[in-house]
């Protein structure tokens, strides 16, 4: 007997991750400078880390309530008012093991066999497999460089998303760094209402915006009742390894997600919940400092690409820029760059249609390394 004969179709239909292949290639190269990392290069703010340590010292190692500690849900409820969002800590917020778990819960709670899940591309690599695991049918919605990778009603129409049941949004975006303004979201919201979709809005990069404030589709008229918002502590607070996120939505939606969560996860890690609570209470300054550091690096990287003649739209969020490959072959470029110059980055095609011909360049690395990496990219591009 081999387990190979027993794999579920749901799992088998999902191809291996393209990012994994690049990770393996990069691991074989010595002294690699990586611009391929999808997490902050900072550690969690010290105050948050000490809160986690304190909680362990006090023996806080039991489960919490399924939905997360009440205090934490209250702090989250208070926090998100800065994005114009209002959710009741009692029954409209659930704390999860990373925003990733929350996204998975939503797929399982709201996607029926054969439901169509519209996913703007290029996109973070988990949405399509997540929809497939839940029995849904992913519908790629290509977005384009000339729109700065923003989602438009035209793009939704062209992809046939009017027939979809669910729309996934992720702005600020991984991998492109694209953001959407309130007005642009209003157009998407109109499409969504007209065609009666629900929206899963992954706003994990909400605090990493460099030109204007975060805008959420959930705050648009008629949208709150049909939107689940995801957020978390991984990106803004550099807490990826603590695995803590949350979802917010109408009570009946959060109830359904909690049903899955209570059986699959019970509760999010308690130690991380204490860290998160402290992060919300006292780490605004630390976040502000990280954000200004990212912003300096973002400008630096954009300026360097411009100088070397590589087209790159001005990404205004997350910690990625998404330049075009001169001859269009992103995989060959990424492999050649790794081989000749020891710089790792991720080819855009890994993130789905619309990503091909581009590169995801993460600036979550020190200025010192960025400077060297950009010089090496320049050397590779000019063939010197």
């Amino acid at each position: 007997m081999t387990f190979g004969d027993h794999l579920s179709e749901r799992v088998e239909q999902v191809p291996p991750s393209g990012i994994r292949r690049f990770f393996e290639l990069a691991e074989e190269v010595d002294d690699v400078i990586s611009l391929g990392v999808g997490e902050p290069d900072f550690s969690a703010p010290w105050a948050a880390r000490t809160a986690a340590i304190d909680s362990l010292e006090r023996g806080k190692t039991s489960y919490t309530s399924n939905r997360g500690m009440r205090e934490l849900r209250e702090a989250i409820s208070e926090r998100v008012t800065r994005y114009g969002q209002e959710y009741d800590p009692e029954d409209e917020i659930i704390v999860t093991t990373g925003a990733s778990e929350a996204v998975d819960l939503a797929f399982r709670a709201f996607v029926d066999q054969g439901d169509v899940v519209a996913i703007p591309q290029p996109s973070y690599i988990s949405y399509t497999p997540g929809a497939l695991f839940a029995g849904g049918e992913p519908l790629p919605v290509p977005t384009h460089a000339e729109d700065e990778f923003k989602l438009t009603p035209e793009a939704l129409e062209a992809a046939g998303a009017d027939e979809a049941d669910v729309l996934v949004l992720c702005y600020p975006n991984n991998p492109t760094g694209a953001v959407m303004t309130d007005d642009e979201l209003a157009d998407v919201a109109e499409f969504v209402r007209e065609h009666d979709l629900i929206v899963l809005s992954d706003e994990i990069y909400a605090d990493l915006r460099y030109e204007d404030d975060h805008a959420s589709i959930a705050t648009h008229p008629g949208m709150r009742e049909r939107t689940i918002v995801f957020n978390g502590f991984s990106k803004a607070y550099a807490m990826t390894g603590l695995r803590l996120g949350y979802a917010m939505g109408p009570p009946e939606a959060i109830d359904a997600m909690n049903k899955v969560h209570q059986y699959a996860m019970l509760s999010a890690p308690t130690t991380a919940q204490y860290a998160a609570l402290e992060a919300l209470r006292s780490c605004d300054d630390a976040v502000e400092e990280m954000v200004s550091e990212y912003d300096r690096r973002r400008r630096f990287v954009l300026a360097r690409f411009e100088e070397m003649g590589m087209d790159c739209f001005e990404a205004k969020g997350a910690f990625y820029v998404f330049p075009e490959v001169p001859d269009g072959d992103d995989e060959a470029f990424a492999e050649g760059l790794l081989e000749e110059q020891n710089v790792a980055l991720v080819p855009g095609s890994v993130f789905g249609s619309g990503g091909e011909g581009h590169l995801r360049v993460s600036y979550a690395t020190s200025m010192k390394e960025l400077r060297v990496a950009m010089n090496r990219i320049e050397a590779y591009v000019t063939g010197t």
Partner: protein
Amino acid sequence: MDKRSLLDLLRRDARESVDDIARQLGADAEAVAAALDELEADGVVRGYQAVVDWDRVADEHVRAQVEVDVELDRETGYEEIATRIARFPEVATLRLVSGDYDFFIEVEGESMHDVSNFVSERIAPIPEVTKTVTHFVMDSYKEEGIELGDGDDDDRLSVSP
């Protein structure tokens, strides 16, 4: 040219080239050079120094923090006393502080003998000085916002989603 952003950046790394500073601030190089000149001319930026972990330097290097009490009279104020103390090249830092004593001095020298001699022969005899307390630095863990440990390795996966 936002001078505050420029200062923040210099405080992180004063060795950045004017071009790299310009790229990070989204300004042009001439504007950055001009702003730097202005900051220096106005005395806002007084110098650029390396942050040294002296434990890793073979040469002997001794530092002490000295608390100094003074008694003022009608002719002499803090300013006059400070000017006299500040002239000594051994004095690296001199501040007037609130609390139990008046002046905080950081003294540097090549040996403990050098430093204690300096305090007893140059500072203590100043007529207005009534008391000194010298604290030799035994170890330093953080200087100018920079931790002096071995640092943390970047243990993130080299490529991740």
